[in-house]
């Protein structure tokens, strides 16, 4: 990837890009993450690096079948192996047998029925990792193999795969007049594949038994309190006796960590009385964690002859895989955003999330919103082609703005500068064609020293706009608690918001620097003895935990300044803090923070809880979202039209960010999101065959490399404050992931003239048929 500097290296004239700020602290500055160097040098400890005296190694036995009845489990051969300390199966789970992120529908260990390839069946603790794996393999499981349900369209009529049935959620959204018909109608069928979060560090953990009969789990959890509650319920222990300690998180694109690994780990520690460690292999990682929902979308757009949208009809089918996880939420997002950031007066969107024997789906950032974006933007391209209209112009005629209604009848109250964003990417200068710029080496599709042929390469330019929600939806209690302490001129933040690479710990430092004027701010490691802060997902920590930190810091500030203000007979508001100094408005008072503290420690704890939302009703109506974020992108691609190979040359981004809190981190988030989106567009698809995961590894599951990551140009960051959000800022990580695949698909459409209705785009869909050559002679 071209690094955070790439976007700032050659800013196109007239564009606003994040600039390096000489100011080393506070909000709006490019404060670097404290752990960046250790991470770059490989010295930062992750869960896989942990060690404890006398530890045992765990291995999990997973199902080789996607659907089977378990007839018999014989653990005796494993127990008999020297070095094996314990073997656990479903029978050994003392508490709740079921777990699950939203719905508890997932057995800790399968005991009667296996519902997906890789489902845990037993776990072993042994004194060597090899012994543990051998022992797991030695467990005899007799299966009656059943026919798997792998086509989500078949799930409706298939026998129930689970006592909860195969329909996880159904939303028939009705908005407006069903009978209205547009002058122009376009239809399309779109498919989106199964993207894996593919964290760079696979799941790992260490469980340590406690003297009080409880257990501590050292894991890279992104939602420690939920993970603790699930684990405690399954262990049959009070929540206080289970402590989740969050280690460094090696990559998180959604809900990280696999409870199917954490719970067995804790069980083994409780049973053996030893610390137990597990490091998942890459294959287990692919089998264990949740993926993005594979989605099938049918659309019909109605417009008038001027290109104004009249009605959108859509059917959206999400493959939830074997268990519910967060599928209900993903479906709500997909249905609510099915029309995109456009004004549509009549919308009829029917969505289903169904159970299959495919690998479980769950929260991967941009859930639901990404899949529909690829489809509604495909429809906009189709409509433009049918009307003979410029695709950007068509979009401009329909863009949503603040005050418009979504098809859920929720009114958009936050900034929604969709038109401005689209305009910005349209006006940004296009990258030169390599033929015009002989200096630059042309990196052809297929890569350096590859098969690419300049004569067969067509360039395409495409556009996408999209939207995503921030924070939990439909009545989720989004709350976070933070504590700020100041003593001796340095401050500490205690908040259970996990730093996943999204930048929360840097932001927390910036907030405290800004409010308390101290430079040195420590962010405490996270564990579940702290009050909950919720999941590190959906951009919530900037808003909710950042808001809590700011409130706590302001309370500390008041405590610090009040005695001074009282002494000098002025109000606190007339005092300001900067660079460790407190000064009054008139300059009469000037002292340092350290002096003002007089050796005391000041503490404050505060909460932030945004305004509540409500569930969508039976017609998909309701104020389900707290906040929305928007982006527009222009993608430039080169396609080798004979081979169908594609390279994304550049992606130009304009994003609605509310307020820039850390320019360098923001650019990095956007680049990372675009790159993940490019992965979805071109290569990332965890394939299954009859429910069996194919090639679960980084050779079979291709991710974008540095050569696949496009130049990301930030054309505009619209800083219109969102008045209800903390700092007025909008979370920036998810919306680039949502829009980039749609923009890339649009560009490939423009290069090839092919429909491009499937992500990732397969080479055969990007090939342009050549006139047949004359028959060979001779």
């Amino acid at each position, binding site marked *: 990837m071209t690094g955070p500097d790439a976007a700032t290296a050659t800013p196109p004239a007239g564009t606003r890009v994040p600039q390096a700020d000489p100011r080393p602290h506070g909000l709006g500055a490019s404060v670097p993450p404290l752990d960046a160097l250790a991470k770059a040098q490989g010295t930062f400890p992750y869960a896989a690096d942990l060690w404890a005296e006398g530890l045992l190694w765990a291995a999990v036995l997973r199902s080789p079948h996607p659907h089977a009845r378990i007839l018999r489990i014989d653990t005796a051969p494993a127990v008999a192996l020297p070095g094996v300390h314990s073997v656990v199966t479903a029978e050994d789970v003392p508490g709740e047998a079921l777990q699950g992120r939203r719905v508890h529908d997932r057995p800790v260990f399968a005991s009667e029925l296996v519902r997906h390839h890789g489902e845990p069946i037993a776990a072993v603790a042994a004194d060597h990792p090899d012994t543990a794996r051998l022992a797991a393999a030695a467990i005899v499981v007799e299966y009656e193999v059943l026919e798997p349900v792998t086509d989500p369209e078949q799930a409706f009529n298939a026998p129930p795969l689970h006592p909860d049935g195969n329909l996880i959620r159904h939303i028939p959204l009705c908005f407006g007049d069903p009978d209205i018909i547009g002058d122009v109608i376009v239809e399309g069928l779109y498919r989106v594949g199964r993207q894996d979060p593919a964290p760079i560090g696979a799941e790992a953990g260490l469980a340590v038994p406690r003297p009080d009969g409880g257990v501590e789990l050292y894991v890279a959890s992104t939602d420690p309190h939920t993970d603790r509650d699930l684990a405690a319920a399954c262990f049959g222990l009070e929540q206080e006796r289970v402590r989740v300690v969050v280690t460094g998180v090696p990559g998180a694109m959604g809900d990280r960590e696999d409870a199917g690994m954490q719970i067995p780990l804790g069980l083994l520690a409780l049973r053996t009385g030893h610390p137990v460690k597990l490091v998942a292999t890459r294959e287990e990682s692919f089998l264990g964690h949740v993926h993005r929902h594979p989605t099938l979308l049918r659309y019909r757009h109605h417009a008038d002859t001027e290109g104004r949208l009249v009605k959108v009809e859509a059917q959206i089918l999400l493959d939830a895989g074997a268990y519910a996880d967060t599928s209900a939420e993903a479906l709500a997002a997909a249905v609510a955003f099915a029309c995109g950031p456009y004004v549509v007066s009549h919308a009829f969107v029917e969505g289903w999330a169904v159970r299959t024997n495919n690998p479980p789906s769950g929260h991967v950032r941009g859930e639901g919103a990404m899949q529909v974006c690829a489809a509604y933007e495909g429809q906009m391209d189709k409509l433009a082609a049918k009307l003979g209209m410029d695709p950007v112009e068509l979009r401009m005629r329909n863009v949503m703005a603040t005050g418009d209604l979504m098809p859920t009848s929720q009114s958009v109250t936050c900034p929604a500068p969709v038109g401005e964003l689209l305009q910005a990417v349209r006006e940004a200068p296009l990258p030169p064609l390599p033929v015009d710029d002989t200096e630059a080496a042309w990196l052809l599709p297929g890569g350096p020293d590859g098969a690419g042929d300049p004569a067969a390469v067509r360039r395409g330019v495409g556009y996408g706009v999209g939207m995503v929600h921030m924070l939990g939806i439909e009545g989720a209690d989004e709350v976070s608690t933070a504590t700020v302490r100041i003593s001796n001129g340095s401050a500490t933040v205690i908040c259970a918001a996990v730093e996943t690479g999204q930048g929360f710990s840097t932001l927390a430092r910036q907030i405290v620097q800004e409010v308390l004027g101290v430079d040195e701010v420590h962010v405490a490691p996270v564990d579940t003895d702290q009050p909950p802060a919720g999941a590190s997902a959906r951009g919530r920590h900037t808003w909710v935990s950042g808001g809590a930190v700011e409130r706590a810091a302001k309370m500390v500030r008041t405590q610090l300044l009040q005695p001074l203000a009282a002494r000098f007979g002025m109000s606190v508001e007339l005092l300001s803090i900067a660079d460790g100094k407190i000064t009054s408005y008139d300059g009469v008072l000037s002292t340092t923070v350290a002096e003002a503290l007089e050796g005391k420690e000041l503490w404050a704890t505060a909460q932030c809880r945004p305004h509540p939302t409500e569930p969508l009703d039976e017609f998909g109506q309701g104020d389900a979202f707290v906040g929305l974020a928007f982006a527009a992108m222009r993608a430039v691609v080169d396609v080798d039209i004979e081979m169908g190979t594609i390279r994304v040359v550049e992606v130009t981004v304009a994003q609605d960010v509310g307020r820039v809190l850390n320019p360098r981190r923001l650019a990095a988030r956007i680049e990372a999101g675009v790159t993940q989106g490019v992965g979805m567009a071109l290569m990332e698809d965890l394939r299954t065959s009859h429910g069996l995961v194919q090639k679960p590894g980084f050779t079979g599951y291709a991710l974008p490399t540095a*050569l696949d990551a496009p130049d990301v140009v930030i054309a505009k960051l619209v800083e219109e404050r969102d008045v209800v959000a903390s700092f007025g800022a909008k979370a920036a990580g998810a919306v680039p992931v949502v829009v980039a695949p749609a923009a890339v698909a649009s560009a490939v459409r423009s290069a090839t003239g092919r429909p491009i209705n499937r992500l990732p785009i397969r080479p055969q869909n990007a090939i342009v048929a050549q006139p047949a*050559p004359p028959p*060979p002679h001779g």
Partner: protein
Amino acid sequence: MEQVVVTPASLDEAVAALSARPEAVPVAGGTDLMAAVNSGHLRPAGLVGLGRINELRGWQYQDGHALLGAGLTHARMGRPDFAALIPALAAAARTAGPPQIRNAGTLGGNIVTAAPTGDSLPVLAALEATVVLAGPDGASREVPVSHLLTGLDPLRTGELVAFVRVPLLHAPQTFLKATGRSGPARAIASVAVVLDPARRAVRCAVGAVAPVPLRPLEAENWVASCIDWDGKRRIAPEACEAFGDYVAVACVPAPEPEESAPPAGVVQLRRTVSVLARRALGRALA
């Protein structure tokens, strides 16, 4: 479990070490072997490291041939001096994985692993290379690379790949590879094309579509007859195109029984091979 690692400094010592401990496994760059060890698929009782054997890390000339050391790394083979000698092998080496892997991975390791996607393999097949195997007690034998790969004449216990004998043809050669991304990746299909002007022959091999590289012999013969060998070695574009299709049909068979229309996967793979072969020949003759 006791593991013994020896790092001999000469080929003879290496062969002796291997004879002494037949259960030991040779390791060159370790880019295939160590991945198998780390994932638990392989638990070698001992290792014979080949990295210190200088005689395997370069090449010599012998009667119009180059005798390539098995320890040549992909990075070394990718350099211009090597590319001037055996251009297709250099081209293959340059695409055989990311730089870190190419710095360590060797020609010998690529041959012994014999992965369908081994990038040097179609080139060696097209060059009709032979492999010099060093065995216990100074025994040495030479086997065509294709015999080794197909298992017709496999590596025997205690044997090492010492050298690879490759003809020096002093004519253009190409290697092209189709992958799923722009960055380093395994081949979906690859094609090597080698010109042998002295014999007025074109030799071609297709990699990654079958367990071993495939030679489309009829297509080779046919296309050799289309080339104006005495002139500027030109070929009509239609012939080049037809060569591509010929190679593709020969190397990507439709499943039995022959149906009226081959399945989509076969059509797409044929299309890929066809374009690769056409481009590879076109570039060799350009």
